[in-house]
């Protein structure tokens, strides 16, 4: 069957419902949010119509710069840790039997789908004094008495790596599972050790995939907002936490919207960077 361009109105009909839904409930809300970011806060209601830049001007403070800097730094740290752990893991996984792969994929998907609340609760239990890992260390005699391992930065980072690692593996999986096995075989035949073959053949061949994955995990980590609250202290709060806080608890929807618009710009900048890197890779 040939694909034909739609001619009659009837040909377009199937598009009506999805297009309408996406425009009405994604494009319009998005535009509303941008509009609200220029509105004034109304303590009695949600906001009052206006056109001011006050909400954006509020960014220019050391507090905001600190939160932004911390959010970016945290997301970068999560991305780097996840890709370093996930790359060798996914590479080896892709070379296992299909049955073993399916088992791991089901496990990874199950963890990936877990609510941030649940992950936060699970790790806060693991880091707690009464039920945490330190009890295990006490049992085998490595520690005197159990201690709480949170709230601190390490706990936030661990929780976020836990949340993002399955995502990283699933993003890397298609590229690695389709990687031509003859590449490494050739390197092995020429006398390279498996580890040397991995670093000199696999990693360079996947340069673009790796950069794209780093950025995708970075964006994913940028969206985390419950784990910093559950496992960290207020100084570990990210931009996502601050947006929720302003929108819900401080009832300052315009300021929250301005921060969200800013976050979109950061994210889009990152996506543009990915595309740029991808294009460069194609040209080379």
């Amino acid at each position: 069957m040939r694909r034909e361009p739609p001619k009659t109105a009837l040909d377009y009909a199937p598009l009506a419902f999805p297009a309408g839904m996406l425009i009405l409930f994604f494009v319009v809300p998005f535009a509303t949010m941008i509009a609200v970011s220029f509105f004034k806060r109304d303590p009695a209601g949600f906001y009052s119509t206006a056109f001011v830049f006050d909400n954006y001007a509020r960014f220019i403070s050391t507090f905001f710069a600190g939160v932004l800097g911390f959010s970016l730094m945290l997301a970068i740290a999560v991305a780097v840790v996840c890709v370093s752990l996930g790359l060798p893991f996914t590479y080896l996984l892709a070379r296992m039997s299909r049955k073993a792969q399916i088992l791991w994929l089901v496990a990874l998907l199950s963890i990936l789908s877990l609510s941030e609340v649940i992950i936060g609760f699970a790790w806060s239990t693991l880091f707690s004094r009464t039920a945490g890992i330190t009890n295990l260390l006490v049992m085998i005699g490595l520690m005197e008495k159990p201690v709480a391992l949170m709230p601190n930065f390490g706990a936030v980072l661990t929780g976020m790596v836990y949340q993002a690692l399955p995502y990283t593996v699933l993003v890397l999986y298609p590229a690695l599972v389709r990687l031509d096995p003859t590449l490494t075989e050739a390197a092995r035949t020429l006398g390279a050790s498996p580890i040397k073959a991995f670093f000199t053949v696999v990693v360079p061949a996947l340069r673009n995939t790796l950069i794209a994955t780093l950025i995708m995990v970075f964006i994913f980590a940028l969206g985390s907002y419950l784990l910093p609250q559950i496992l960290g202290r207020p100084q570990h709060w990210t931009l996502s936490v601050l947006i929720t806080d302003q929108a819900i608890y401080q009832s300052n929807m315009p300021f929250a919207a301005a921060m969200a618009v800013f976050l979109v710009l950061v994210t889009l900048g990152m996506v543009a960077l990915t595309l740029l890197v991808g294009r460069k890779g194609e040209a080379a």
Partner: protein
Amino acid sequence: MNKVLTRVYFTLIAIFLAAPIVVVAGVSVNEKQSLNFPPQGFSLSWYGAIFTDAGWRSALFASLILALTAAALAVAIALPLAWFLWRRLAPWAQVFQLLGIAPFTLPPVITALGLLTFWATTGFYGQPWTAVISHAIFFVTLPLVTLSLGFSAIDRSLVEAASTMGADDRTIFRTVVLPLIMPYLVSGYAFAFVLSLNEYIVAYMTVGFTMETLPIKIFNALRYGYTPVMASVTVLFVVMAALIFGLVARFGDLPKLLGANAADDK
């Protein structure tokens, strides 16, 4: 040596991934209302409490109804769109594919806040059905991706044959296309269902003050201290997700859904 290293590495990752769940599972069988691991005593009463405690039960049902309907709506949006993009030559229609993928790619707080401002402006803020639409839009990406994959896997000569025999679009869709994409449709629904069940921020921003879904209930409970029901509910959710993805893998080609070549290509 290399095999051993691989095994050690996989074991460490498995421990890292399983540890929190194992501890929570242990905590969930404590006899008393205490946060202890290893558990003291053994009791399954906290699992019963999910269904006997009115608050937890209604949160569970709210989440289930939300996830069932939102996933259905997401599929209803994704199916005609994916079909249209497969059947017609309309490059500009790719815009809608992009729109379908955007909500899931951006940090969730953005989609959540966009929907919050939208529902607040239109005056529907807090209505339970707004959460259904919000989740359907947020998760439409999943059925859209699986269905696009399903359509691209259809051998067009099959459709050609049906068409030559005189079948119209509607008949072809019902008798040829639908059976072929059914596994992709089901897995798209399953992905959206499980993720909606676990979603927190979009639900919280849209209906957080009028309706308690399970993740919202857990977070609220977490702020006021600890109850072992949180642990039993967590275990229930992990088991449910594993079961659903296990079924997807049993009846579909999971590696292919996630980007590998089909099993018979190898």
